[in-house]
């Protein structure tokens, strides 16, 4: 795992050296810059050593004939098998690194090598003979990769900061990304919040030559099949074997491994697989709310289940009580996540990684389980709304809906979680399947968003603003089962642009690598094809994973209700964040920013303060956005590196070669 950067353009070596330095936290162990002698091209790398701790893994790595140069971030879990195959084809290896194997695989099989890779990666391959750059990202987007093009130049990097440092783009807002962020709390790919900076989409590669580039998809989530030829028992056996194999593969590392344990089904399943793979004394880490915060949040006690899982499966458990100085934490998180992310789960992950960094360099996570196995409440809501629509309309319109509309979401300091859920369920229960799925996935509808951004909510409103990509993904899935379409949209967008994004960035901020065994390629290939009845049926979710874990993990974890991986946001907004709300959402300040309607922002704050509505995530999103503007836009030259000082020794070495 590392940070990568590169530039084809003016002064590439000096600029890439600066871009790479901004990625120091991603790879504290080594730094390197490679420059072409024929082209104005340079690649950079920061490395955190996990496999082969010797200097032979130095990056960027050039092929023996000097034609190819590779800078790469991630882990190829099947590199041992690939190396054997490549050796049989005459390749000789100097190191034990997966980088050298990846480079040889790309030389041997060209871009077709992507189909053979099992792992998480983002890389740039430069062909010094033809002057062609290839950028590629793993199937599900576990590792990030950004780029920006301007005229005949292209800059890329593991982080947006590196791309900004290239000087190729100005920090200017992308309006569609802003709309997407406000609706979803994250920015859907390929956009980022900055106009001109894009993500290489997951499962895709980008080929660039002389200022012209194309993006091609090499992998997509396989479609769900209506039925499987395997019996349920065979499916369960196969899932167990695949999970165990994935854990064994992903635990290949020369550094200590830990696990982010929420006490939910997914992370406990990963803990079990790691234990089954022979890891003993695995360290586990979880977050606990203060009881007063939990009450205000109306949340469940996750920490109890995490302790139970750790003790049942023999992990050395550490519990972190969530009482951060959230006001000073917010800018740090925003700086590291780069695109604004208003899901408070990002805070938990950040704090857990910070706490675990002393003892673990690699952390396992259960990320992806909800998207793949069908665990989200929004899936259930979307399906159950069809039943609700069968009730007589008069009963819905004149009894149920007015009743819940009038109910408060909090009584004093006690949050009413079920009322919050019911209000959101009813708001979209009468819509089409796509609109209700999007409704349950978003925090503003089209009209509300238009009003927030200062337009007319009663005018010609674009209902798809900010979420058009998600709509297209849903429609592109054809007439498949609702569960398949929901899962597909989430695996394509929600997972890489939210959960995986903050996992990578929060991990890297602490120089810790997060691995996600539930998203191992073989697990995805198996589960994505299985019929809907093995994911959701009636009100049961994650049916297959629950069955596969029966007898392996404590029964109470299998039966516990779904709890979001969250933070006590409602308590924070009434406590430590109050002054920040007053300052950042002051009507004058909102006017100064020229983005929102200050009257609407004021109304949201007032309604929330009075407990009439729950706008906590909306308010958190606005605070995050303001912090993001301060970090990435107010000082336009913050990440531009005008004077780099002396070049690092590695640069001089690369050029001398």
């Amino acid at each position, binding site marked *: 795992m590392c940070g990568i950067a590169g530039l084809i353009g003016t002064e590439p070596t000096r600029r890439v050296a600066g871009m790479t330095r901004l990625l120091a936290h991603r790879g504290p162990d080594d730094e390197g810059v490679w420059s072409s002698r024929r082209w104005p091209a340079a690649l950079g790398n920061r490395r955190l050593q996990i496999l082969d701790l010797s200097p032979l893994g130095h990056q960027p790595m050039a092929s023996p004939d000097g034609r190819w140069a590779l800078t790469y971030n991630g882990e190829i879990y099947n590199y041992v098998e690939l190396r054997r195959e490549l050796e049989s084809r005459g390749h000789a290896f100097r190191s034990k690194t997966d980088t050298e194997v990846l480079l040889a695989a790309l030389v041997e099989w060209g871009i077709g090598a992507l189909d053979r890779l099992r792992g998480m990666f983002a890389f740039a391959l430069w062909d010094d003979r033809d002057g062609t750059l290839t950028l590629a990202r793993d199937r599900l987007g576990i590792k990030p990769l950004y780029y920006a093009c301007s005229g005949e130049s292209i800059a890329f990097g593991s982080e947006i900061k590196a791309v900004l440092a290239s000087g190729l783009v*100005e*920090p*200017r*807002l*992308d*309006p569609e990304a*802003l709309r997407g962020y406000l609706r979803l709390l994250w920015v859907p790919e390929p956009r980022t919040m900055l*106009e001109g900076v894009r993500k290489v989409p997951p499962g895709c590669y980008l080929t660039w030559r002389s200022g012209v580039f194309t993006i091609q998809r090499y992998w997509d989530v396989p479609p769900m099949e209506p039925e499987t030829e395997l019996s349920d028992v065979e499916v369960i056996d196969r899932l167990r074997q695949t999970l165990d194999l994935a854990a064994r593969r992903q635990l290949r590392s020369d550094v200590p491994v830990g696990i982010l344990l929420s006490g939910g089904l997914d992370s406990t399943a990963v803990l079990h697989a790691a234990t089954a793979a022979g890891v003993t004394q695995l360290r586990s880490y979880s977050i606990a709310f203060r009881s007063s915060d939990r009450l205000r949040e109306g949340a469940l006690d996750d920490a109890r289940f995490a302790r139970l899982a750790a003790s049942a499966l023999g992990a050395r458990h550490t519990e972190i009580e969530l009482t951060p100085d959230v006001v000073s934490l917010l800018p740090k998180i925003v700086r590291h996540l780069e695109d604004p992310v208003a899901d408070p789960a990002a805070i938990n992950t950040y704090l857990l990684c910070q706490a675990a960094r002393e003892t673990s360099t690699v952390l396992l996570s259960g990320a992806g389980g909800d998207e793949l196995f069908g665990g989200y409440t929004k899936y259930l809501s979307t399906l159950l709304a069809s039943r609700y629509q069968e009730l007589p309309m008069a009963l819905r319109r004149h009894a149920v809906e007015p009743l819940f509309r009038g109910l408060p979401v909090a009584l004093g300091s006690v949050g009413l979680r079920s009322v919050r859920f019911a209000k959101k369920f009813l708001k979209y229960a009468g819509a089409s399947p796509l609109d209700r799925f999007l409704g349950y996935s978003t925090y503003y509808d089209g009209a509300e968003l*238009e009003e*927030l*951004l*200062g*337009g*007319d909510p*009663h*005018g010609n409103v674009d209902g798809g603003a900010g979420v058009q990509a998600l709509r297209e993904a849903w429609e592109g899935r054809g007439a498949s089962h609702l569960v398949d379409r929901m899962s597909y949209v989430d695996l394509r967008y929600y997972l890489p642009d939210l959960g995986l994004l903050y996992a990578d960035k929060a991990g890297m901020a602490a120089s810790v690598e997060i691995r996600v065994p539930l998203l191992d390629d073989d697990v995805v290939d198996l589960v994505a094809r299985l019929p809907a009845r093995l994911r959701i049926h009636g009100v049961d979710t994650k049916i297959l994973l629950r069955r596969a874990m029966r007898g392996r993990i404590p029964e109470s974890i299998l039966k516990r209700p779904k709890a979001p991986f969250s933070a006590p946001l409602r308590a924070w907004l009434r406590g430590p964040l109050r002054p920040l709300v007053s300052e950042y959402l*002051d*009507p*004058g*300040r*909102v*006017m*100064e*920013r*020229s*983005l*929102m*309607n*200050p*009257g*609407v922002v*004021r*109304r949201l704050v007032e309604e929330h303060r009075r407990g009439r509505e729950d706008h906590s995530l909306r308010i958190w999103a606005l605070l995050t956005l303001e912090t993001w*503007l301060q970090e990435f*836009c107010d000082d*336009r030259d913050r990440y531009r590196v005008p004077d780099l000082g002396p070049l690092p020794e590695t640069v001089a070495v690369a050029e001398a070669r």
Partner: protein
Amino acid sequence: MSRDPILLVGPLPPPLNGMTVMTALARLGLSREGVPLAFLDLSDHRPIGNVGRLDARNVLLAFRHSFRMLGALARTRPRLVYLPIAQSTLGFLRDALLILAARCHRVPVVVHLHGSSFGTFYRGANGLVRAVVRWCLSEVPLAIVLSDRSRSAFEGLVPADRIRVLPNGIPAPPGFLPSPDGEDRCDVLYMSNLIEGKGYRDLVRAIPAVARERPDVRVRLAGEWSSDRERREVLAEVRRLGIAERVRFVSSATGLRKAQLFRGARVFVFPPTAVEGQPVVILEAMSHGLPVVSTPLGGIRETVLENETGLLVPPGRPEILAKAILRLLQDEPLRARLGEAGRRRFHREHGFVSFQRGLKSLLEPEAC
């Protein structure tokens, strides 16, 4: 230096209008300058049509505000009250109750006049109202006006040495704003409430002449209708003039929507027929680098410099307005020159930092 706060009294948005905007900006600016501040919010969230109307709710609201004022004075013990004052009979009577409350607490009141029709209002008022005005202003330590020309509004009411000039200042558009969408592009933009005195109907009547020379001209009027009846009348007029394809009415805009409208326009037109102070919307257009076509009423002739940052036309003369619009649409270098000069003038005269510093210095104990 005294650390007792200044009590700022005024409405915050919603709705958005000159008064709520300047109150919000005054509050932001003073707090940024580190001035100890208490705030009494007089927001009335009803639409623009309710402003200045004599009804039971407005009367009740006025009394409620004055009771809240008494509470705020007792609670915050300010050294000074800062009050943007109204220039209509009902509005001023409401302000008089607030001033009365301050007098009861022996707290001086600095008044800030954001318009330029105060003199007209005062001269047209009956004897009783004029007496109230005289009493209210008799002890103000300072009256703030928008320009030298507006000093005359307080002639005979406030001694000349207690009148200070502070031009309106608003934040410049941030550098991170995105490029406008194609949907936002237009040739002529009007942005203000759709009220007769704002001159928007003159703009509508000027369009046929503009369209004869520029058949593809796109005109956008963004604002809130004052009544359904007016909307129906104007839309019928638009159809009668045969310009329905050329003219588009959109609702009042703010935030990103407003910024995109400004950034997508070529010429800004605001031709009021009633006296204006220093319309914030003209400053906004200047800040976005747009040349302005307006009328030389009130403070506008000090804001829009003829042939330098815009063109001034007589009020109520659509045919002359059309010529000015055409001149700008047909002469790109002129448009660019006036727009850029307007932007520079905005930064020089109406920047937010100079406004907040100016306001702070006027409210310092030694100044008043």
